[in-house]
């Protein structure tokens, strides 16, 4: 398990006052953050730009030392036993950097594999397996500079898996990818956790992706965790706005009044059409079962039913609004 206890990261930055004078300032990107990642689990790290996501990932991956607090990976200290920890982790960032463009896909993997002390048949087998996994076997001998953005990102994934890490940090892995490639990568990430038991930390601006993949989510704001739970619970605790659109056979005015009376704290709008009634409800809970019961009891036909559930995106937007208010 990866465990971060009370980690902070503060930088000293120089603020230019004028041509000759600058002033030193201490800026803390992450403050007293607690976080854990278990094997086989996908954990999301969400926040607006500058919230401290990348700094957190860099501390967890031993590239940055925390100013305070402790990070352990399976009991090993990430600062004191950094070399031991590095064998168990890897990081994949979105975008087209972090590859040698003049080298082929296979040569890139071979170089990084050797830095992880893999060699001979073991390395060649691993390279072939990973290229196959990310669908680049046919392009393995092509220089990376000729790869498409999606192919480069897939190679990045293969590079991040070259040492078969127990824990993987994914920093915006689907950044700028088109929908089919992003979907393919999401499938791969899911399999890595469920089939290969890898612990994964994921940051992404695509909140549907986080909602689909993550078992737990940390939401950070200005370096501090403001919420931590499963995506469902976060949505339920932050956003209470279900929208139901239901079209039934014509409802009597009496029944409409009965519904209005029973559904307190809800906004209900009835529109009588030629042979039917259209109902729009905004409720702080899911009103679907209530309507289905009414329709069954009153022998009313349901012609159309559409429920819009709140999403993680709504939760983040609500939180952001609350914070800025």
């Amino acid at each position, binding site marked *: 398990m990866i465990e971060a206890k009370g980690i902070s990261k503060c*930088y000293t930055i120089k603020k230019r006052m004028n041509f000759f004078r600058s002033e030193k300032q201490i800026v803390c990107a992450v403050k007293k953050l607690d976080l854990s990642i278990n094997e086989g689990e996908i954990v999301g790290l969400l926040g607006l730009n500058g919230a401290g996501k990348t700094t957190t990932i860099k501390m967890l991956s031993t590239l940055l030392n925390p100013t305070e607090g402790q990070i352990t990976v399976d009991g090993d200290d990430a600062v004191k036993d950094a070399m031991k920890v590095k064998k168990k982790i890897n990081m994949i960032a979105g975008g087209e950097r972090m590859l040698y463009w003049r080298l082929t896909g296979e040569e890139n993997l071979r170089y990084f594999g050797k830095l992880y002390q893999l060699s001979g048949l073991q390395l060649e087998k691993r390279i072939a397996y990973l290229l196959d996994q990310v669908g680049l076997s046919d392009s393995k001998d092509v220089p990376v500079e000729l790869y498409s953005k999606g192919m480069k990102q897939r190679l990045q994934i293969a590079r991040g898996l070259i040492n078969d890490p127990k824990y993987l940090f994914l920093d915006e892995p689907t950044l700028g990818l088109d929908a089919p490639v992003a979907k393919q990568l999401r499938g791969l990430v899911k399999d890595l956790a469920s089939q290969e038991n890898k612990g994964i930390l994921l940051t992404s601006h695509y909140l549907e992706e986080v909602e689909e993949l993550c078992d737990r989510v940390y939401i950070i704001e200005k370096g501090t965790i403001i919420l931590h739970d499963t995506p469902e619970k976060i949505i339920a605790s932050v956003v209470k706005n279900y929208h139901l659109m239901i079209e039934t056979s014509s409802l009597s005015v009496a029944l409409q009044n009965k519904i209005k009376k029973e559904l307190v704290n809800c906004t209900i709008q009835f529109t009588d059409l030629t042979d039917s009634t259209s109902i729009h409800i905004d409720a702080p809970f899911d009103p679907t079962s209530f309507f289905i019961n009414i329709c069954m009891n009153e022998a009313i036909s349901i012609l159309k039913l559409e429920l819009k559930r709140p999403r993680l995106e709504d939760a983040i937007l609500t939180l952001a609004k609350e914070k800025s208010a």
Partner: protein
Amino acid sequence: MKMLTILHAEMVKSHRHNFHNKLIYFSLLLWPALLFVTAYYSFKPFNLTDSSPLSAYMNVDQITMFLLTGYLGYIFFWSLVQSAWNMSYERQAGTLELIFLTPANRLMIMFARAAGNLLEAVWLFTAFILLVLVVTGKAADIYWTHVPLALLLLSVSAIVWGGFLNIVFLFSRDAGILFTIFEEPMQFFSGVRIPVLAFPIWGKAIAYLFPLTYVLEIFRDLVLNGKNFTQMIGQYSLLLTIILLLCISSVFLLKKAETHAKETGNMVLY
């Protein structure tokens, strides 16, 4: 074994990355050959007899050999300045951070990078020198039995120098200034074209700041003057001291650079 794996990985990567275009082999020969020819013909208009002022510091009959050995040493050292300068590419591409994400021995990577680049950068000019020796009939002036030792000393010194520079470039993204410092001044003061003894005191002081100066003196004494081990103990000791100092500084600076990067996150800045 681990060291060899990293060495091999770095050599292959450097080869594929820096020597991807076959035209580069022309520049590897053409540029140093032009440097040599330019230097040779710039001496031509001057008095190169025994009455020449230069004759007080060197055998003027050996001017061709002096320049050839000078430029050979210079190419060994200069190619590694260029290689270190390429560290900025690793910084920009984000691969430098990935290298430091691995558990590989950093010192080994830095020196392997130098070794990998050296071989590729110098073999063509070395072959050119052999050709010049044959064509000009100067091959007989060489103490051939001393050549392997001289080349070994030159290579080891250059690799240590290259590893040290790689680390300096790792430490700071603004180390590009070294490129300017080491180009013309190193060529001029290290005794590549003019014997160091011909410089005034201040010039000599600058000359001995460059490790190439010590290596060239030994190289020429071995290959051109045929001096034996006992005659050169002082020079060997001095070179060994310089190499040790560079190695110790490399270890110290590397630790400092990585610690600094972990504190400031500057490894991704470019």
